């Protein structure tokens, strides 16, 4: 089915809540190409669930998600992996896993059955390393990195996948302030330079208000509100939902 408004992704009447998640229903929203979006809401309101559903990791309960020219559930996993990449809250805990190898896994949807990297794959990885300024981490063990460095490496892995849509679950949690700001600026740069749609969940309106194009707020009652950050700040909805 053709996506009516030419949004990259659009969902109508969506109900999520698979696998012990908070159930959210009647969700409507859209994502445009190259847009940077922050998803907000108090803990446990179902942000992760919504993101996992939009990324195709969780099945949806009802409603429809249109992505590019198809319904998301019509994508098989390997097709989907060419267009959507994720950065999750769970961190890989693997002995002797080197940064380069982890980022190279991002190319795995594009490589042969043995996972060999082509010249092109290696070029793409090098560019990502430069873009995120982590060339010097290349040969380090992932386990030995700081939280901020780990987050950048996981972002690099997702970028190496070359998606149209990048979904990040709480990327700034556990980071110190400079790392938070750095990560936000990187996400902005990625969405602008690569024309990639980026959506991430966060708690921090001050951090994002001058950066993102849209804010999605899941209210305590479970409704999803889509506004510009300015509207969000002036409408008082943010204060109401966070009891600040």
């Amino acid at each position, binding site marked *: 089915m053709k996506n009516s408004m030419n949004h990259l992704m659009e969902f109508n009447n969506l109900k999520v809540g698979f696998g012990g998640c908070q159930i959210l229903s009647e969700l409507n929203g859209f994502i445009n190409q190259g847009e940077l979006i922050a998803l907000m809401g108090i803990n446990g309101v179902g942000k992760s669930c919504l993101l996992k559903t939009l990324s195709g990791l969780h099945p949806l309960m009802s409603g429809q998600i249109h992505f590019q020219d198809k319904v998301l559930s019509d994508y098989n*996993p390997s097709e989907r992996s060419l267009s959507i990449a994720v950065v999750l809250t769970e961190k890989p805990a693997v002995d002797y896993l080197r940064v380069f190898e982890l980022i190279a896994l991002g190319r795995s949807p594009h490589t042969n059955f043995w996972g060999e990297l082509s010249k092109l794959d290696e070029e793409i990885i090098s560019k990502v390393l430069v873009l995120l300024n982590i060339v010097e981490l290349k040969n380090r063990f992932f386990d030995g990195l700081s939280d901020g460095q780990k987050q950048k490496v996981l972002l690099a892995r997702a970028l190496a996948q070359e998606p149209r849509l990048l979904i990040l679950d709480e990327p700034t949690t556990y980071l110190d302030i400079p790392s938070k700001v750095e990560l936000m600026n990187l996400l902005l740069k990625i969405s602008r330079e690569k024309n990639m749609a980026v959506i991430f969940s966060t708690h921090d309106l001050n951090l994002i208000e001058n950066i993102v194009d849209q804010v999605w707020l899941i209210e305590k009652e479970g409704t999803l509100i889509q506004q510009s950050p300015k509207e969000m700040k002036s409408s008082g909805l943010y204060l109401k939902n966070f009891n600040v």
Partner: protein
Amino acid sequence: MNLISFNKLTILAVITFVIMSVLFFYGDVGFSYNDPLILWHLRFPKIIVAFFAGGMLASAGLLLQVFFHNPLAGPDLLGINAGASLGVALAIMGSAFFPAEFLVLTIPVMAFLGAMAIFILLMFLVRKNISKISLIILGLLISSFTASTVSVLVNFSTSLQVKNFLSWSMGTFKDVTLENLPIFVGLSMLSLVGLFFIPKKLNQFMIGENYAKSMGMNVKSFKLSLIIICSLLVSVVTAYCGPVVFIGVIAPHLARALMKKSDVRILLPTVFFFGSFLALSSELILVLVPVNFLSTNSLLGLIGAPIIALYLIRDQRRLQ
């Protein structure tokens, strides 16, 4: 694979082959006795069986450790060995249902079904966030449950059947005759072929199930193929050699420590040779120290249990 990794693997393989040839020319009766009958009928099958059995158990151990994200996982500690044992016990002691003439066939088949049953049971019982220790305790509980079932079976069996089962359950590489060797090697090759199709998927799965999904993996079919490959590896060994312990859990640690890599494409061959090395070394020790109170399994237990205990004590924090 880069040159350094390749060189390390080559050295490991060479050492393994040296031990194999020593075991061929030096046995219980010393260098002087080179009767072809002893060389080919006694020593040769034992060496080949130890080579494959060690390698296969070790490979299964690596698969399980990646699959459960748990450095303590292994065919014995998870109870998959025990499942295969239960299958074999049913085959040997349930001869009313399984005529003794077909034991050559029923033992491997029942071992496979037993191993697979336990693996599937584990998949159902294990919730995503199970702690590493809980998983192992679950495995031990499964082992003690199957052991109890076996002791119930003993009550309904003849003394010959019980004796057959007990001698099988000691764990040894010496019981495969030259005539049966081609069947064993054939089955081993069959179960090893599966390993060529999963390294890339294991690398993806290693960093987390959801990441693997997002990189295009069909997780259901991956899990199914892993269950089949692992059960095949473990059951072929267990059917012919008995429940051999600790090789599966130790070899992956040695391989990671040697290679300093996590890439399964490099670890898998290394793990295989470490498994062979461990199995052959235990045979070599048995030959060099010819006392009749040591067996393969008791030796592996004597070395293996303290290594795992050390790991537990040293890495308590990471096992939470």
